[in-house]
């Protein structure tokens, strides 16, 4: 499929919304401000409560181990005992701390979201049509409130009467006010936004505490975070590894006894903690919370962690053509003279007829002519010219000046106008018009009539859908990741096909009705594929609900937002791609840290087993490949490494591992090399270095 795209002659298309540079996120993730670091401490300590730790069984085992070694060390203090005990407690603490930091970052997000929830007075309409003043927090779904200019909208809802311009910058960061009106697809309003002009009646759509901002706050704060299906499955794996190692260590107690190599409970607990997957166990929930957080930073509110996970699994992306694949408006790309008319005459007419035309198409014609023909750069409309506005009835627009009438518009309408004014339609017009249509463009025919003379056709303006810069490359990336893109458009099949080819999408649904969309989603799902789409209209709601990942535009209707499982506050349909990437990054981070955690165990055996058994079996000293200085320091070094690696990986857990779109096999190879092989090697180095320091302690 071709990926060449036409750009307007001589004019570079505006910059396309590139994905956020991840650097911004990275910096804030690493640069955990000092405040965040300190503020997370009390929360981390609170989370040591065993009742809270039950949620992460691996860490609960560590805590129980820490309690056991504490008791043992109090009864029989030794350097080894004290060191192991302290570092076991630190291991638990680092785990809870990771979660607390992730939640803290979420809390910062939540605070800004919560600012929207500030209590205001609301004018609730009573049955008799009068209004009463009530606090916004007492509003229930179904209540109708009156909001006037300068007032804050008290809750999420739908405009049922009136039209107003609303400042939504608090939610979207976009400063330009937007129009909200009853009926149609622009009826949804968000609590906390401000009405700038006019007055509207709003029907509140959610009870206090259950608006999606509320739900989002709960999710990013982690307080009500439900574990996602994949997280639970991973917990099962981690749990079974913990049980296996528990049995290994318990049986070792007896086997060691038999072998006259008696092991103290303290050492066995240390071994157990080093073997069970503490790294991933400690960081698992932080990874999940941070994933949600990354979405919020991109102004996407997810209704559940499950949705984020599902995003990673998406096989098919349904993308609306307009605004996602092409710029929202058509642009003039070439001027085609017909009937022997000079190009210059056509250009001049096209320019003059468009000068006063404020539509994006009109502006693009002016830009095109000025860019290609510098001599016309400062041509101006003749004096006394009046704009003839486009109307659905005439399907033409133009200019009436003394002694000159210009028209441009749909081919049939302009031809009719020319004939009406005594002109003849040149024979080659049909062919040119047809050619433009075939290329997926919209032909605008330009005609003029001088001083009551005969009208004549000058030529055709080729208005084309311009495919966004870089979008073809993005689709190629998606294809490499195994994601199929389907373009949804209302255009006819021929036009749609042309644009689809230019943008490099895999498939196209032309002349699409909402029902077609829904049917397509169902069909894909029957084939076992996961579908993501975005939409804003009420008629998109069923499809949004049916899709596995449905991203509703914030500008959309309440129905659409209720149906989707994410809301994009920026209402940028391109963001669907980023949502998928965040989902994948979340899963990769989980897998990478699990692999790293398990791979670490190999080195720990080489540290601890010789330490345990060399006194009884001196020949096992060959296993001490790191040449650790003493059994005591070997055990302490392994325990300390095990704890420190959690802290070291917190930034990675919060930021997510580096993700570049690639085929599964390539991703696997790279991540396996970094986290699998790296996980094998890193602890050998780390434990050896720690041993050099730890061995200086007296009594080890």
């Amino acid at each position, binding site marked *: 499929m071709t990926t060449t795209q036409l750009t307007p002659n001589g004019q570079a298309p505006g910059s396309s919304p590139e994905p956020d540079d991840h650097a911004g996120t990275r910096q804030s993730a690493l640069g955990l401000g000092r405040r965040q670091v300190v503020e997370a401490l009390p929360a981390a300590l609170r989370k040591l409560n065993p009742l809270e730790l039950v949620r992460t069984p691996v860490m609960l085992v560590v805590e129980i181990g820490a309690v056991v070694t504490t008791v043992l060390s109090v009864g029989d203090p030794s350097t080894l005992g004290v060191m192991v005990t302290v570092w076991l407690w630190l291991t638990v603490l680092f785990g809870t701390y990771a979660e607390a930091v992730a939640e803290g970052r979420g809390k910062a997000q939540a605070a800004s979201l919560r600012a929207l929830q500030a209590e205001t007075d609301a004018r609730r309409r009573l049955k008799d049509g009068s209004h009463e003043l009530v606090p916004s927090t007492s509003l229930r779904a179904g209540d109708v409130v009156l909001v006037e200019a300068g007032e804050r909208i008290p809750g999420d809802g739908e405009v049922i009467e009136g039209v107003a311009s609303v400042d939504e910058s608090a939610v979207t960061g976009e400063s330009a006010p937007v129009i909200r009106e009853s009926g149609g697809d622009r009826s949804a309003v968000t609590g906390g936004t401000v009405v700038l002009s006019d007055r509207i009646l709003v029907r509140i759509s959610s009870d206090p505490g259950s608006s999606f901002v509320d739900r989002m706050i709960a999710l990013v704060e982690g307080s009500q975070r439900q574990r996602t299906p994949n997280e639970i*499955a991973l917990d099962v794996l981690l749990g079974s590894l913990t049980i296996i190692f528990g*049995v*290994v260590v318990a*049986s070792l107690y007896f086997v060691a006894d038999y072998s006259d*190599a008696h092991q103290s409970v303290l050492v066995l607990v240390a071994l157990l903690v080093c073997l069970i997957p503490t790294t991933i166990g400690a960081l698992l929930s932080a990874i999940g919370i941070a994933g949600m957080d990354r979405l919020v930073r991109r102004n996407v509110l997810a209704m559940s962690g499950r949705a984020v996970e599902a995003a*990673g699994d998406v096989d098919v992306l349904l993308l609306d053509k307009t605004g996602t694949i092409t710029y929202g408006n058509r642009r003039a790309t070439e001027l085609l003279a017909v009937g022997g008319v000079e190009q210059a005459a056509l250009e001049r007419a096209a320019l003059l007829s468009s000068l006063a035309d404020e539509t994006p198409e009109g502006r693009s014609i002016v830009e095109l002519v000025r860019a290609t023909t510098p001599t016309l750069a400062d041509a101006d409309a003749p004096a006394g010219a009046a704009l003839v506005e486009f109307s659905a009835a005439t399907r033409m627009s133009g200019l009436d000046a003394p002694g000159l009438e210009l028209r441009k518009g749909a081919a049939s309408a302009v031809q009719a106008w020319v004939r009406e004014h005594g002109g003849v339609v040149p024979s080659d017009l049909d062919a040119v018009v047809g050619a433009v249509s075939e290329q997926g463009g919209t032909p605008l025919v330009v005609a003029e009539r001088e001083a009551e003379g005969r009208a004549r056709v000058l030529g055709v303006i080729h208005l084309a859908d311009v495919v966004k810069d870089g979008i073809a490359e993005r689709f190629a990336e998606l294809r490499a990741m*195994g994601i199929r893109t389907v373009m949804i458009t209302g255009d006819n099949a021929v036009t749609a096909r042309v644009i689809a080819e230019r943008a490099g999408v895999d498939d196209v649904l032309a002349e699409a009705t909402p029902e077609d969309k829904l049917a397509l989603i169902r069909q894909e799902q029957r084939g076992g594929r996961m579908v993501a789409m975005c939409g804003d209209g009420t008629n998109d709601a069923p499809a949004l609900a049916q899709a596995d990942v449905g991203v509703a535009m914030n500008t959309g209707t309440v129905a659409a937002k209720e149906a989707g499982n994410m809301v994009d506050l920026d209402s940028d349909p391109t963001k669907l791609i980023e949502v998928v990437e965040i989902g994948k990054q979340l899963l990769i981070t989980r897998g990478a840290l699990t692999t790293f955690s398990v791979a670490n*165990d190999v080195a720990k055996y080489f540290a601890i087993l010789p330490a345990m058994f060399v006194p009884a079996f001196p020949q096992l000293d060959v296993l001490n490949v790191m040449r650790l200085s003493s059994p005591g320091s070997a055990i302490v070094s392994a325990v300390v490494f095990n704890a420190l690696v959690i802290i070291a990986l917190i930034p990675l857990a919060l930021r997510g591992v580096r993700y570049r779109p690639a085929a*599964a096999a390539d991703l696997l190879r790279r991540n396996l090399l970094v986290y699998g092989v790296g996980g094998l090697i890193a602890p050998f180095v780390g434990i050896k270095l720690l041993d050099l320091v730890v061995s200086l302690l007296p009594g080890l």
Partner: protein
Amino acid sequence: MSQTLPALGQIAVLVVALAVAVPFLGRLLAHVYTSERHWRVESAAYRVLRLDPDADQHWRVYALSVLAFSMVGVFAVYAIARLQPHLPASIGMASFPADGAWNTAVSFVTNTNWQWYSGESAAGNLLQASGLAVQNFVSAAVGLCVAAALARGLARQRAGGRVGNFWADLTRTCVRVLLPGAFVAALVLVALGVVQNLAGARTITTLDGGSQSLPGGPIASQEAIKQLGTNGGGPYNANSAHPFENPTPLSDLFAVFLMLVLPFAMAWAFGLIVRDRRQGGVVIAVMTALLGTSIGLLTWAEMAGHGTAPQLAGAAMEGKEVRFGEAASALFAAATTGTSTGAVNATHDSLTAAGGGLAMFNMMLGEIAPGGTGSGLYGMLMLAVVTVFIAGLMVGRTPEYLGKKIGQREMMLVAGYVLATPVLVLAGIAVAITAKDGLAGLQESGPHGLSEALYAVTSASNNNGSAFGGLTSGTPFWNTLLGLLMLFGRFLPIVLVLALAGRFAAARTLPAGPGTLPTHRPLFAVLLGGVALVLVGLTYVPVLSLGPIAEALS
């Protein structure tokens, strides 16, 4: 003469023979487990037994059928062993003690074939033929059936948890695969010099005038299914070291071939059943790599002959047959522990410490290289699911294997499977070396004594059945303990595998694309082998380090 050349030669012959036989048998097995047609003799059997061979069983029904069938087998063997003197064809053998009968019944039904008794002096012909030999066939068949059910579960979608019909699978496995296979194998064995008669012991006068009783019997026919069905329980106590059972290096090599052929062929069949031969190829590749490494290391350990006795003697020949030598003994040891056969042509107790440790490690792998008939495949597939779960996340999708999502339920079943055997082994060893009755059975003390006990519990829990020697296991303590380990080590995993097969069969199959983790590439094979080694290594290295490792390094 250099021993390296024959050592490599026997492996080359083996590889060629397997390369020819495995695809052929694989196609046969795949056909057996997918064909709709019944043979006339099978239909007759179904009519007599009033079974509906076309009923597609839910996994629970399938599992219950397996359990019920096996329990009947346990009771039957138990009864025959106990009542032996009162039954015909006992050739004068006494009744088994209760614990011994229990151990033997479980042992043969679970395809373990651990033998605490010596066959020629304890088991009469009725027990051998209608108890043990029958189980040699059907216990091998059960393993294949369960593997077929899992393969079918993966191949189906939205089948409501239905995984096939156990009775049809069992009948077909016996009628179409094991009986003809064993028949041909027995003929070959007879041609190679294995004894086959129905006479009892023959008393002869030896050269120096003494008299000796030479036990005969239907040895070749027993031997054929003993090896082909990865059973390992032979008619003679000396097992495949006995010259009547395994007379020549050629019959020895053929015996190794028989052990390996069905486990590999089932992996081939798996690829055919799931309609992607490459998936079977990966399983075979990993099995081959693990087995090949183990053969190489074991042969090296034996031929290098570290240790006091071998160095004094010039070769590690103690406990080995001079007919076979070190290399063939090492090959046999690796194959018999890599499969769940457990037949031996040398005393594993007398392997070098490293060699004995390797044999143990083979079993600890969970009998996946290439494992027992069928059980090797399903063991490997369970590990493949674990591998997919860990590695799958690293490609940015929730894990799936052959288009089946691995969610919480699937993971619980796999986790249970992965947990079951190690827990049995480690709990078993803890009990064995703590209890006075357990310690009483050990011949040696120190690391070698630990190895004896560890070998026994590992062999029982993994349904291998080979014995280290040195352990006096015919005591109520050991018979009971090992019986329990064999029983749970066999049927706990089987039920979990069938439950997983049911879940897979009920789930839909997601189409594969460039975004899904490819499970047919070399990288996945490396990963699967790595996961198997790391998981097993992490589980058993501590206890191994106090047994064979400590001994080998001393």
